Structure formats: C-alpha cells, structure tokens
C-alpha cells in the first residue's frame, strides 16, 4: 500500500540505489573485472548494463502493472504461491551469500589497510554490529541516512577523482579492446549481476509514497551510478597500465594512498576511508534489512525485524568461511556473480511471460 505520508520519496530511492551499487566502485569488484578486461575494463559496465537493463525495465513495468505489490507479493501473485515462494527464497539466498562475501571482502580491506593487528572476526563483528544497529531503526531511517550521507560520500569521491586526474594518462586505454572484444563481451555479460541490487530494492516498492516517484528515483540513481562506475573504472584504467591493473587488489585504496594535496597534506587516505566506511555501513544496513524482509515475506512472518539480528550473525559466520581475501574474491565472488547473472536476467522475463499468458497484463 502506498502511503502518502511516507518519508520515502524519490530522493531516498535515488540515494539508496547509488550507495548500494556505488560501493562496488571502491571495493574489489574493479580488480575482478580487470582480470579479464585489463585496460578495457571500463567498457565492461556498459556491456553488463545492456545485458541486465531489459530485465530491470521489465520487472519495473510489471510492478507498475500490478500496483501495490512488492517483489515477493508480485512473484506469488504471478507464479502462484509455491513457485513464487521458491524463487523468492532463491533471491534471499543469493543476497545473503552476496552480503556474506562482500562483508568479508570489506573486512579484509579494512584489516589489511587500516587495522593490521586486529583479528578479522573482530572487525567483521563491529562492521555488522553497526549495520545491525542501523537496520533495526527501520527503512525510513535507512532511506534518510542514505540521502543525508550521499552528498558527503560523493563529494569525497569527487575530490579523489580530481586529485588523481593529474596522474592519469589517457592513452593507457589503448589498445581499446584490451584482451580482445570477445572475452570482454562475454565477461561483461557474465558479470551483469553487478547491478543486482536494483532487484533487491523493489522489495521496498510499496513503502514509498508513490510508484512513479520510486521508479523515477531508482532509475535515475541507476543511471547516475552507472556513469560514475564507468568514469571510475576509466580512472583506474588510465592510472594503471594494462599489465599492472590486474595485480592491484584494491584499486580504490591504491588511489587514496597515492594522491596528496601538495607537499604538506600527504598520506591523506584516512580522510577518504571515513566516507568509504560510511557508504559500506549504509549498504549493509540496507542489505540486512531487505534480506530479513524477503525471508519474512517468504515464510509469512509479519514482524520480520527481529530476524535482523540472527541474519547479521549468520552473515558473519558465512563470511568467515573463505580462507583469505584473494580466494574470497577471485574464486567465490567471481563464480558466484557469474552463476546468478542468468537468474537475474531470466526471472523477470519468466514473470512477464506467465503474466502475459495468464492475461493479467491486459487489465
């Protein structure tokens, strides 16, 4: 049910989608892309976008048609209670695993770069404790927090872009297709799930004040974050040469460690780290909240907010499984992203086909 008095308007949707996808610019995702893309990896988000965009639009079209239904309700309405629940549960599993993997990846980065002596479980625990605290406040708080912090987070990123610009050499993007057009397209398509968060956010569809504003916020945020991602990948490609880019595990932090503001302000990476960390907190708040929500919806648990605590705990446990960050990234995350791409591309199409056959769309 759309509530006129809801505090969630298009700007909150805009901020949430940007922060959810935007943190992928600054974690290990670029280095994942660089393994095959090399100096052409800045083209890969475009390929991913082309692959995923029809499904995204299709899902948003269906949501509009069915009115007043969030993602899980839509699934159940179109596919019937059982199949709908199975797919919703799959969605839950996917996002839960994503949260665990990325949580671990974040923890590793934090530990490696800023807290070398702290034990990994501790850092992981603190990260999720804060995410839990935020998630527990509810969706409206998360939305407002996203909107409030969005400007500062993006301003710090912009500052970094300006500072690193001096060091970039544009000619490094040539040869334009890197390791070849074919591997580039295949890998870009496989990793289309980089934008999977757009699907997660549809869970909150009915919590916003109107359908139109929600779509406007999410889709414009999506466009913004896509441009930002391409731009930043471009910066990575022009800062590192094609033979070096795949060796860098945390390109964002390499940049923050490399830049300085004149001779006096050197070693300024901690400044960027604060904003980076805030973005991560908000992202995990959103994740925790939505995962619990999907789970609650699948198992008909109306009061799903008490589920946030156990899921935060299980998130830590699952995240601790991989042995180290490199294995986590290059093996688990990479193959997992490839695995879930067909699912995200496919299920909106399936929904649409079933709805079409059932004749629901002619209403």
């Amino acid at each position, binding site marked *: 049910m759309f509530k006129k008095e809801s505090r969630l308007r298009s700007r909150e949707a805009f901020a949430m989608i940007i922060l959810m996808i935007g943190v992928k610019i600054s974690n290990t995702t670029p280095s994942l892309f660089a393994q095959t893309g*090399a*100096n052409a990896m800045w083209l890969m988000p475009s390929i991913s976008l082309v692959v995923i965009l029809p499904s995204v639009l299709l899902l948003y079209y269906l949501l509009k048609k069915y009115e007043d239904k969030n993602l899980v309700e839509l699934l159940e309405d179109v596919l019937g209670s059982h199949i709908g629940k199975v797919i919703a549960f799959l969605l839950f599993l996917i996002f839960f695993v994503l949260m665990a993997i990325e949580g671990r990846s974040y923890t590793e980065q934090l530990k*490696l*770069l*800023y*807290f*070398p*002596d*702290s*034990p990994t479980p*501790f850092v992981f*625990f*603190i990260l999720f*404790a804060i995410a839990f605290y935020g998630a527990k406040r509810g969706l409206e708080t998360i939305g407002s927090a996203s909107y409030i912090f969005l400007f500062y987070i993006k301003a710090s990123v912009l500052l970094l872009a300006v500072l690193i610009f*001096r*060091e970039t*050499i544009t*000619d*490094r993007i*040539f*040869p*334009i*297709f*890197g*390791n*070849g*057009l074919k591997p580039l397209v295949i890998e870009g398509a496989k990793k289309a799930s980089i934008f999977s968060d757009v699907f997660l956010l549809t869970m909150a569809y009915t919590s916003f004040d109107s359908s139109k504003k929600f779509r406007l916020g999410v889709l414009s945020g999506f466009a913004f974050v896509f441009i930002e991602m391409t731009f930043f990948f471009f910066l990575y490609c022009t800062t*590192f*040469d*094609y*033979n*070096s880019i795949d*060796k860098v595990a945390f390109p964002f*932090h*390499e940049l923050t*460690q*490399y830049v*300085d503001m004149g*001779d006096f302000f*050197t*070693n300024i990476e901690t400044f960027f780290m604060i904003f980076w960390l805030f973005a991560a907190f908000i992202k995990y708040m959103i994740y925790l909240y939505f995962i619990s929500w999907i789970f609650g919806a699948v198992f008909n648990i109306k009061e799903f907010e008490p589920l946030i605590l156990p899921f935060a705990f299980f998130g830590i446990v699952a995240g601790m499984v991989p042995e180290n960050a490199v294995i986590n990234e290059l093996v688990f995350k990479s193959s997992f992203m490839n695995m879930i791409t067909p699912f995200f591309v496919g299920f909106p199409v399936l929904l649409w086909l079933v709805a079409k056959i059932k004749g629901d769309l002619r209403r």
Partner: protein
Amino acid sequence: MRKRIWLLILFLVPLTGCYDQIEVEQQTYVIAIGIDKTDVEGKFRITFQAANPEVGSTISSGGSQEEPRETVTLVGNDLIATKDTANSVMTKQIALDHTKVVVVSEELARSGEFLRLIQAAARTTELRRSVQIIVSKENASDFLKNNQPLLETRPHKYYQYMLSRATETGIIPEADIHRFFQITEGDADAFLAIYATTQHAEEKIEGNEDQYIAGQIPIEGGNPTQFMGSAVFKEGKMIDVLSGQETRIANILDDTMEMEALYSTYPDPKNKKYRIAANFTKDRPIDVEIDYQKDQPTKINITVPFSIEVIGIPSLVDYSQNGENRSLLEAYIPKFAEEEANNLIKKTQEEYKTDVFYWSLYIRKYFSTIEEYEKADWNHNIYPNAEINVDFKLKQLYFGKMIDDSNIGEVRD
C-alpha cells in the same frame, strides 16, 4: 543496576577500535631506505634512515640536542622483514608510511636484482607508490651516511624540497615507484630513475650548466650530495646513465613528465665565444604523429611547441630590435634543440633499443587488442627501426624586461 552493567559492557565494544592504536611517539618514521648488494645472492644490505621529528620543529624550543636523523644498516632478505631486525638498534616501531625515497646502489641496479626486492615492497600497504627511486653511484648506505644537508637537516624536508625543485628544473626525472611498475611491467619503454652521488669524480669536467652527471659538477661548498641526471632502467635492469642535459631533453619529449620552465644556455649564433642564457618553457603538450605500417619502418613525427625568454646576451649583439639578428636567433635555437634531441634519440635507438620517452603510448591506438600490440613489439621491432623526426617549434620569443643592452662601445669610450 543490571541496566547499568549492560551499559558498561556496551561501552566496551567501541574499545575494540583501539586494537591497532599506536601513538605517534611510539613510531620511528623512516624517510629513506637504502638497498645494496651483498656477496650472497638473495641477501641485501638494507639501510634505514629515520627522521627525528623533534629537531627543527617550533614546539621543541632549544632543549633537544639530538641528531636530526638516525641511520642503520643491516643485512636482510626482504625490506619489510628486516624492519624487525632493525629494531634491535632502533628503539621504536618502524613505520614506512612517510618514506620519501628508496636509494639503490648502481651495482644492485645494474645486476637486475632490484626488481625482486621492490616487488615485495609493493605488496605491503606501508610503502607508498609515490616513493621516489634514486640510484646512487656508490653504495646506498654510504650515500645515506654521507648525505649531510646543511640547511634542511630534517631528512623528510630535505628530500621533499630537493627532489621537487630538481624535478622542476628537469635535471632529474620524476621517478616514483608507481611509474617504475607501470613502465617496467608494460615492457615497452625504459624507465628513468634519479641519479645521485656523494662521491665526487677526480677530474672535473668543464661543461655547460646541465651537461654533467652527478659527481662531476664542479661545485664548492654545500652538501656533498649531488642530484643530476638519470639512470636508465630497461626491463627492470639499469643499463646506462643520462646526463642532466639528456634528462632534460627526455623530460621535454615525454608528456607524462611534469616539468616547468628551465634555464639553459645556447651558443650565440653571431659570436661563438659566448652563450645566450634563456628560459625554455614547454607550455603545450607535444604533438606525436605516428605513421605505422606493418612491414615498413614506422615514421614518427614529433612537434614540440616551446617559447624562449632570452635573459642574457653576454656578447651584447642586438637580437631584440635588429630584425635580421632576431630571425637568425629564431631559426638557430630550434635547430640547436633539435640537434640535441636527435642525438639522444639516436642513442636510445641504437644503444638502448628502447625509448626513454614513454612513446609506446602513442602507437597503441593502432591496435585493437593487447595481443596484437605486443606482437608488433615496440621494443624490439618498431622503435629501433623507426624513422623519427623531431621538430621544435618556437612559438614565442621574449626578451625580458629590458629593451636593449648597454652599448659596450659607448661605455668603454
């Protein structure tokens, strides 16, 4: 009561953030690292030079009689692991966050072992990518020990100012670790590192202002350390030394280098006994045109737009108002610069078989994949056989703030 205890426990949680806390006072900031070869392969002599932050700061008024720096040399296998061994002498935890330079002895650089050691350094988060690489003629440990700056006694300020000023004048290249890796891993061009020494050559060479390499400059007084010229690294191995003049040309011809105006002298075309002093500014990026054909030698045309401000004409020939003389000068300076550039290019083509200007960047456009590009082989195939034509284009000629020089004939009258 129970609530209060819970609250207390809750406040303990943020304390975990103190796991990694370390006071500024508990750390030693190593500013320069020296690396030397030993007789045993795989072992290196590593020198740490730490700054004493108390010296020269306004906070410690007088009191401190301590040295501005502490230099320790020891044998180790790895840069980072040796840090702990160094703690047997140095009192505090060694931090490399503020390291400004890595000094490598020429012997080690020429042996090609340097790449192994510095690779390991790139893996840690401590050593920054902006650390500059200096190649010293003598052992790096001697270089760091002999380097006794008189004015900037605090080493971090010394290296910061020394390098930034010398880079601005173009007599040394900009040579940070980041660039070293990009060029070395890119495997197409040669990397230029800063060349320096504290040992002075016996015979002083009589040359013009930038035709020296470090150690040859006939200078009196000051710190014995001289920064001049550059060490050429091909595939991670040092192969030669360029003089200050050649380094300047390399800097001019390389658009990825940041270089400001430089003062230089040119032979006076009307009176060869004297030289004209001028300020050379490259104010626009160079223009590189490449005509690449698979089976023929590649043609590379380079246009360097520059402007000259004439500062001194010791021969007192009137160049500013006499149109004929002026056009003579306008034609002469570019020709002179081209000649110098061509000499260096020829040297790189024939001796090094690779360029020191990062020009491989410009040919990349002609390939769509890395595979094709690497197959065409800039290093072995394209560059050594290329026909290169350098064209210095004098855009503007200034004559300082005087309209005319004093007429020596009238003065002497």
